[in-house]
């Protein structure tokens, strides 16, 4: 028989109590694992989304730039517009390699499905070198290219005609994008002039995506663009990433503190349970000592039981977090103002090892005092005890 087996068999003697103790640790570790994984997943997905924009900076109308960024990333209606003439001014800046003006609108298709419409021109295509179009680029005012998901939802293919919901305008589908795994999959792209016309936004833009000639001089370009025009917001996407990340990091510190308290409370719960078990098993411990068990042997056994409890709790917690990641993600998405598309909670061996390691440390700390108490039991007094 091994120490592990003996410790395990001692745990299952008090099945309900052991399960509840393990559950306490598991819940704390599951929340901790989800939080860390969410933090990593969020940053990585956000980076991916910003990268997919193909630009280093955005020019948006005056107002909250982060709200504008959200619209730019996920599409939608935003009641702020810039004059289209700004696009020429931006393009005229010597530091600009490419600049693409975008107008956006959102309509509801039958079944209450939100359809995001983007009015773009050929400059937009230059920011999307990775696009593969099943068909060809927009060649007249009444043509449309659909993202793969948008085409699937609308039930159209290249060559079909599609009627823009709410607008009753019939467009020829000249291309469907191969899947990009970015926000573009859900968008419908049409000539900018067409969307401006059918949405009553002639001469207006929602944003301008800007690609710098020299990436290392992005900051200088931002300053230069800001100085040239007062009626627009210019901000680098790295700043957006940094701001959102630091916001998330601050939240993480706060939430981590709460979870840490939960973990500590879990540890106190474990300590209490094991200590109670030690008191209840006084005679049994006395018998172990009568059979030659030393202080070290008894200490080792009780410590092993505690560590086993917390490690089982830790592993269970990680498994629960993995299994329920979709549910947790949906919950978090509902709680935060902006979340990138794609899976926010992934799998990381390092985080997994860290959480299981924490549960081990919890066991080592929580089990020390009960193990010490058990080791201090005097066999004669223990066997006499009722």
């Amino acid at each position: 028989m091994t120490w592990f087996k003996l410790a395990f068999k001692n745990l299952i003697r008090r099945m309900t109590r052991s399960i509840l103790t393990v559950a306490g640790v598991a819940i704390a570790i599951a929340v901790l694992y989800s939080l860390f994984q969410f933090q990593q997943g969020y940053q990585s997905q956000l980076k991916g989304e910003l990268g997919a924009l193909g630009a280093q900076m955005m020019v948006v109308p005056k107002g909250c730039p982060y709200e504008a960024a959200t619209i730019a990333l996920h599409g939608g209606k935003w009641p702020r517009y810039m004059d289209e003439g700004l696009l020429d001014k931006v393009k005229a800046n010597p530091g600009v390699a490419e600049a693409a003006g975008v107008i956006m609108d959102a309509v509801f298709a039958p079944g209450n499905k939100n359809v995001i419409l983007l009015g773009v021109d050929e400059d937009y295509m230059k920011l999307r070198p990775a696009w593969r179009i099943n068909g060809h680029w927009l060649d007249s005012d009444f043509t449309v290219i659909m993202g793969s998901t948008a085409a699937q939802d609308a039930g159209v293919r290249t060559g079909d005609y599609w009627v823009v919901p709410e607008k009753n305008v019939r467009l020829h589908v000249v291309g469907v994008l191969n899947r990009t795994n970015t926000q573009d999959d859900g968008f419908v792209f049409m000539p900018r002039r067409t969307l401006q016309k059918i949405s009553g936004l002639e001469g207006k833009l929602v944003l301008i995506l800007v690609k710098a000639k020299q990436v290392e001089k992005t900051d200088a370009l931002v300053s230069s663009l800001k100085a040239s025009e007062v009626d627009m917001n210019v901000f680098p996407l790295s700043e957006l990433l940094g701001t959102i990340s630091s916001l998330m990091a601050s939240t993480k510190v706060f939430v981590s503190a709460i979870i840490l308290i939960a973990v500590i409370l879990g540890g106190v719960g474990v300590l209490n349970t094991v200590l109670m078990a030690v008191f209840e098993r006084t005679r049994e411990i006395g018998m172990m000592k009568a059979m030659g068990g030393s202080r070290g042997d008894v200490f080792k056994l009780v410590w092993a039981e505690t560590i086993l409890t917390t490690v089982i709790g830790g592993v269970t917690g990680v498994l629960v977090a993995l299994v329920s990641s979709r549910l947790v993600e949906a919950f978090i998405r509902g709680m935060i103002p902006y979340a990138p598309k794609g899976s926010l909670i992934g799998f990381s061996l390092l985080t997994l090892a860290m959480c299981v390691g924490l549960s081990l440390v919890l066991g080592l700390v929580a089990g020390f005092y009960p193990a010490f108490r058990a080791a201090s039991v005097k066999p004669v007094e223990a066997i006499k005890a009722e």
Partner: protein
Amino acid sequence: MQNCGPEPTAVLANGLVRTYRRGAEEIQALKGIDLDIKRGEFVGVVGHSGAGKTTLLNLIGLMDRPTDGKLEVLCTDVARRGVRLDALRRMNIGFVFQEFYLMPTLTAIENVLLPTMWGRSGNDERGTMNNERYRAEELLKLVGLGHRMTHRPSELSGGEMQRVAVARALINSPRLLLADEPTGNLDTATRDGIFNLLQALNRDSELTVVVATHDLSLESRFTRVIRLEDGNVI
């Protein structure tokens, strides 16, 4: 543990005193006992409840230290500095109690194997563990439970549980077996079975057996009887 000659003494006590404190009150459980138990004897420590039988067994079993007097167990002075009583106990002394103290989640053979874990580093070779298992099986057969090895205590009768406890006490090949009221919880027929077993162990393996009992009807079963009354040998 040293070898102490051709006719060694298993237990030697001179003026053995054990005093307990209960609040302000001082209770003298043993009041200067002299003892000489030879190796291979089957000794009964007989007396009424409170006579000091358990206290004496605890001292002989190295679970307690005397307040005064000299006590040598298997030629080792228990009061000597640096003596590790738990190691001595593990290697040389087997205990059987009135309550069986079997671990409820362990099978009979696992309960017998339990004392082999104490003092083990955890790195013992598989061969050693196989030998221990073989010995546990042999002991269970010896006590008549060869067919009950994988049964848990809840599936055993009182007598069977005490037989498991006897096998457990013998697993580390002790030289001294101490039994404190081993038949106190058993009916007469089962009691006789357990006593026959203890007698056979004493006879066949020259194991020194000391049994504490308040059951005066068992006196005739021992090779020698030590009578205790109020902390004194009478």
